């Protein structure tokens, strides 16, 4: 009797669920996001920032979207492309993830591209910054930036603001070369002259001889791109060698003054002008809340990698909302195209043609804040809705 009653109740529930169109097969209730990030190695700060930001977003917005539970699986690739590939394969084949995301460096993002195409799932790039990345698979969508975006803008800005002669110092790898070429193109088109060009090895212990060469070339400014992390070393040696006193300014894309490290660089960095997508001092209420929440949760300042991760997970959430929880990869990529939203960095959108990010690029000058005594990139000019110039050329 008793058993019969339970059975009928269960049957009734099942019937109602069936009518409502809910098919409660456990696997389809979760959406899995495979996050491949450098959590160890020289790029680990990138990985940690992105992971932190995603945690923060999910704390704020809950872990369910469109009726599905979002599960994040983090894999460490130490920014080594071979490991990225293995990690992506494991995530796709074993864990059956619906998204792969993260990617600290360009080679890592490229290594995963063919897998995203094959598996037909979106690859959300949250850090790597060379232009070509989104062209390598129709499933790649980017929420970070391209180096061309900031390098062309600082090139234009420098030419228009009385900087005539520039010496360049860039790391010798794809993003460094991107930064250099796009800067050079715009700076010389604006009437500037590149008087000295030095490419430094990626694993460079000592900048002294390169900086001495810069100093002897007597430029108005040095254009610098080194991976975030080496910026501190560069700035210290720049000051040690007296380049600041010789009146040589530092300009560049904002990696050299990443918020993550800026505060430890000392007074020599004050006055450095960079073009970039994000500053922890961006004066919007949304950013103030974001910085406060991030600081409270992780006891450090968010940098541009953190905001790229934050926007990346937001894009995933929005895509799922738009498909109503449908996890078909092709539909998800379609849903991401043309998304527009307000980010802590300002208004951004996803270009429907290139799947790359369109965002404001800010010109900022490093200054010491009066309220907390810390160093910040203070924005003073905005270039609005910048598309990736690396693609519009074609």
């Amino acid at each position, binding site marked *: 009797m008793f058993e019969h009653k339970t059975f009928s109740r269960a049957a009734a529930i099942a019937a109602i669920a069936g009518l409502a169109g809910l098919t409660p097969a456990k696997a389809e209730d979760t959406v899995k996001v495979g996050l491949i990030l450098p959590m160890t190695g020289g790029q680990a700060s990138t990985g940690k920032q992105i992971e932190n930001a995603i945690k923060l977003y999910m704390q704020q917005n809950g872990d369910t979207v469109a009726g599905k539970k979002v599960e994040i699986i983090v894999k460490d690739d130490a920014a080594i492309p071979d490991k990225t590939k293995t990690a992506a394969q494991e995530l796709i084949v074993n864990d059956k993830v619906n998204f792969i995301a993260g990617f600290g460096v360009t080679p890592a993002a490229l290594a995963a591209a063919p897998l995203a195409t094959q598996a037909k799932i979106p690859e959300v790039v949250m850090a790597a910054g060379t232009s070509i990345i989104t062209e390598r698979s129709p499933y790649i969508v980017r929420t970070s930036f391209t180096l061309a975006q900031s390098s062309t803008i600082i090139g234009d800005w420098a030419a228009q603001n009385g900087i005539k002669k520039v010496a360049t110092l860039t790391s010798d790898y794809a993003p460094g070369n991107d930064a250099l070429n796009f800067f050079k193109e715009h700076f010389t088109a604006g009437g500037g002259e590149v008087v000295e060009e030095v490419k430094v090895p990626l694993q460079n212990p000592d900048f002294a001889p390169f900086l001495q060469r810069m100093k002897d070339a007597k430029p108005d400014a040095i254009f610098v791109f080194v991976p975030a*992390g080496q910026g501190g070393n560069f700035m210290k040696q720049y000051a040690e060698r007296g380049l600041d006193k010789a009146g040589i300014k530092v300009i560049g894309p904002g990696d050299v003054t990443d918020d993550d490290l800026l505060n430890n660089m000392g007074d020599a960095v004050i006055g450095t002008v960079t073009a970039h997508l994000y500053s922890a001092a961006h004066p919007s209420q949304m950013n103030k809340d974001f910085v406060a929440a991030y600081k409270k949760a992780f006891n450090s300042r968010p940098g541009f990698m953190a905001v790229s991760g934050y926007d990346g997970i937001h894009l995933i959430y929005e895509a799922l909302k738009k498909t109503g929880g449908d996890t078909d990869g092709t539909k998800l990529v379609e849903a991401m195209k043309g998304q527009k939203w307000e980010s802590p960095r300002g208004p951004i959108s996803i270009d429907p043609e290139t799947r790359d990010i369109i965002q404001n690029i800010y010109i900022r000058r490093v200054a010491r804040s009066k309220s907390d005594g810390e160093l910040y990139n203070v924005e003073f000019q905005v270039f609005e809705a910048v598309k990736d110039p690396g693609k519009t050329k074609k």
Partner: protein
Amino acid sequence: MTSILTNLFDGVAYGMLLFVLACGLAVTLGLMNFVNLAHGAFAMAGGYVCMLLVNQHGWPFFAALPLAFVSSAVIGIVLERTLYRHLYARSHLDQVLFTIGLTFMSVAAVDYIQGSSRVFINLPAALEGQFDLFGVGIGRYRLMIIVICGLLTIGLQMVLAKTRFGSRLRAAVDDPRAASGLGINVPQVFAFTFAFGCGLAGLGGALSAEILGLDPYFPLKFMIYFLIVVTVGGSSSITGPFLASLLLGIGDVAGKYYVPKMGPFVIYTMMIVILIWRPNGLFGRTAAR
């Protein structure tokens, strides 16, 4: 002309730094015939100790430097007594595997405790910047490196050549059995020497943070430089590594200044040329024991 001299100065400073970092390895490798690839881990330990004392406990930089030496030496002697001494008689391959494992452990441990981002030591203002001497730019910090490392080198040479400990060490190295027969406590001499080498590495680590940068990957990143110094210098004395360090430091800086396109390879090219010319290093003995 002045830029040549500035580069020479920078090169000497860089070379001196390489020497202090690597000479402990020359001692263990050459004198004790032990392959210690974890040498860089001791350097890193010194660097982090100095950083923590200065940045978090407010010690003056010059007071923290000796502590960097002492702490690395203490870590060295503890590890020597507990782990290393069991491997003296083992094959070089065992030693390599053991010490490289130790290196990876140190990287992971520091990454876990201190985080992976690069750290800087807060220097006193007196050490920052450059001054001009007859048009040659002299970096204060690099000048300090040259002074400290120069004094150390002279001191080391004196200890090895003139003191009782130096002659005991040389005896213990040349023929451990005869030396112990003469009443020299060979294991103790080796332990002390090993610890001293680690201490030097620690001091080098603390001094190099400003110039080379300090992060948990330090032991792996600079292992190749230590090995080049010891290979080029030969490992039977400290004069060899000293001259090799200077040569490589000056060559590296000059290469990066004058031919920046191939700058990073100058140091490797020099190594190859020297090794073709003298396969055992500049001052190497022709035959090992």
